[in-house]
């Protein structure tokens, strides 16, 4: 697939990246500007609205060719919410706002936390995990694994002088339609409005100003929620927006039952103080990046599960944690929300060979 803003309509078009002649890829650049997309194979040319504009030696078709029918194929449905573009292969899917259900509130909390614009920072994490994609959906909102899996990361934070004594306190919510979130208070700072020594004395005033600003724009309750709480948000099935000290926008595509490609970007307020941007970058690459102090161990855990499954003796996972209490951020209610939706959509087919038993 590729995405382009239509030069005439101004619309965001998402097309299958497939030439309607004989299949070659028509957009071969990762990013940029183009008036037209010319397929290099036989030089059919499409405009940014997907219309077929040029065919070399067209007479050879004797006027029989229906150009309109040979437009680039758009993805079945495309809709945007506050700059996030969603594409679906299901032509009958509900409208985006209904689809997002309770996740809207959490996307808004992320986007509204700056009075300016958000931007995706240059530099993309494109890595791969040899595990089923659903394991990353679980892992991205799994508070239970943090202490055991990420021991070396917390040691790193302690070495930097972060006071972790307050611990992590929070709750998990089922947001409907398979979406789920962990919302929690954590001892580390947040560059939008919660100062910590790591940010430096010289940023103290700016952070106090941002905090006052947030409260005046959104009121005490919503403003301090943006300033003080972190959220790990899963938008079913494969979008994660984790707003911790840094914000990641992460998506993952299954390539095989035991392999996925992960692509992650960093989202940040466009005009923030250089030293806050620096701490935000530091936090992303040490915690969320594939060369950091934590994410490689998530990869190890997911691949380890995938390897464990192949043995065949254990047929089910147990994700019942927290069923007997108000689900905490380290319980598994959020995973149950994901799996219920998945199970509902797959029906019995989702259980593979169990169907025939």
């Amino acid at each position, binding site marked *: 697939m590729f995405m382009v803003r239509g030069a005439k309509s101004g619309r965001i078009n998402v097309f299958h990246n497939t030439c309607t002649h004989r299949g070659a890829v028509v957009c071969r650049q990762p990013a940029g500007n183009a008036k037209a997309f010319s397929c290099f194979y036989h030089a059919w040319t499409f405009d940014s609205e997907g219309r077929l504009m040029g065919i070399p030696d067209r007479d050879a078709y004797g006027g029989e060719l229906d150009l309109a029918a040979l437009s680039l194929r758009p993805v079945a449905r495309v809709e945007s919410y506050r700059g996030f573009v969603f594409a679906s292969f299901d032509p009958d899917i509900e409208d985006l706002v209904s689809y997002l259900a309770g996740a809207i509130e959490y996307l808004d909390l992320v986007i509204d936390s700056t009075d300016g614009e958000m931007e995706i920072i240059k530099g993309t994490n494109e890595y791969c995990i040899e595990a089923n994609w659903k394991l990353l959906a679980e892992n991205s909102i799994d508070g239970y694994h943090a202490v055991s899996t990420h021991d070396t990361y917390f040691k790193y934070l302690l*070495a*930097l002088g972060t006071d972790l004594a307050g611990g*992590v306190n929070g709750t998990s919510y089922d947001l409907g339609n398979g979406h789920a979130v962990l919302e929690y208070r954590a001892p580390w700072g947040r560059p939008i409005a919660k100062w910590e020594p790591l940010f430096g004395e010289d940023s103290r005033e700016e952070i106090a100003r941002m905090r006052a600003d947030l409260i005046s724009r959104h009121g005490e309750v919503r403003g301090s929620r943006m300033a003080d709480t972190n959220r790990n948000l899963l938008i079913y099935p494969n979008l994660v927006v984790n707003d911790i000290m840094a914000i990641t926008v992460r998506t993952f595509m299954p390539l095989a039952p035991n392999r996925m*490609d992960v692509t992650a970007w960093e989202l940040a307020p466009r005009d923030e103080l250089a030293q806050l941007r620096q701490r935000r970058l530091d936090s992303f690459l*040490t915690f969320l990046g*594939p*060369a950091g102090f934590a*994410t490689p161990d998530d*990869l190890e855990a997911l691949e380890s599960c995938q390897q464990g499954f192949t043995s065949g003796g254990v047929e089910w996972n147990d994700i019942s944690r927290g069923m007997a*209490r108000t689900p905490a951020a380290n319980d598994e209610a959020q995973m149950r929300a994901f799996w219920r939706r998945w199970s509902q959509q797959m029906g019995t087919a989702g259980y593979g060979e169990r169907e025939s038993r």
Partner: protein
Amino acid sequence: MTTTTGAPASPAARPAEAAQTAQPAQPTWPTWPVRPDEVVDLDALGRSRIEDFLCLEAQLLDAWDLDTWLTLFAPEASYVVPCNDSPDGDPARDLVLIDDDELRLRLRVERLNSRRAHREYPHSRTNHQFSNVVVGVREGDELPVVASFTVWRFRNGKASYYVGKYHYRFVAIDGRLRIRSKRVVLDMTTLRPAGDLAIIL
């Protein structure tokens, strides 16, 4: 609705810390041409002496002797790896894969020495190879050096590789050759062939 979930720093139950695999025996270099404590003249240092130094570095990394490897750096060390899609990435502005100063580099080594760095416990076997070494013209107190590299990583039946260029800035500290900065630019268009980057390149 707030529920306490415990402090993240509280230690989890620790598994028996038995060594799971034997690491390759640590190499010794009885007649090594450049020892890290040898006094050198930065201006008179030819390519072959630099190559000896790079070879020593590669062997320390392959032997997982990271504490000794750290001593090859100047106190103001920097180790940077940009993202695959932004080889010109500036760690002050852009997202990069690694942006270690002296402190973070030391903490990275501490992590990799720990048995709780799960991705690297047990350690991968690695082979750091370099070639096409070009020694630049001295700039101030720094000697720039560029080399091509391939790092092979083998673990748990899986083979992966990293290919790219090393950009070093060497300095002489009390006459001893040290790395002030090492910038590793990957040629792979994504990190996907390798999965992650838990090892040091």
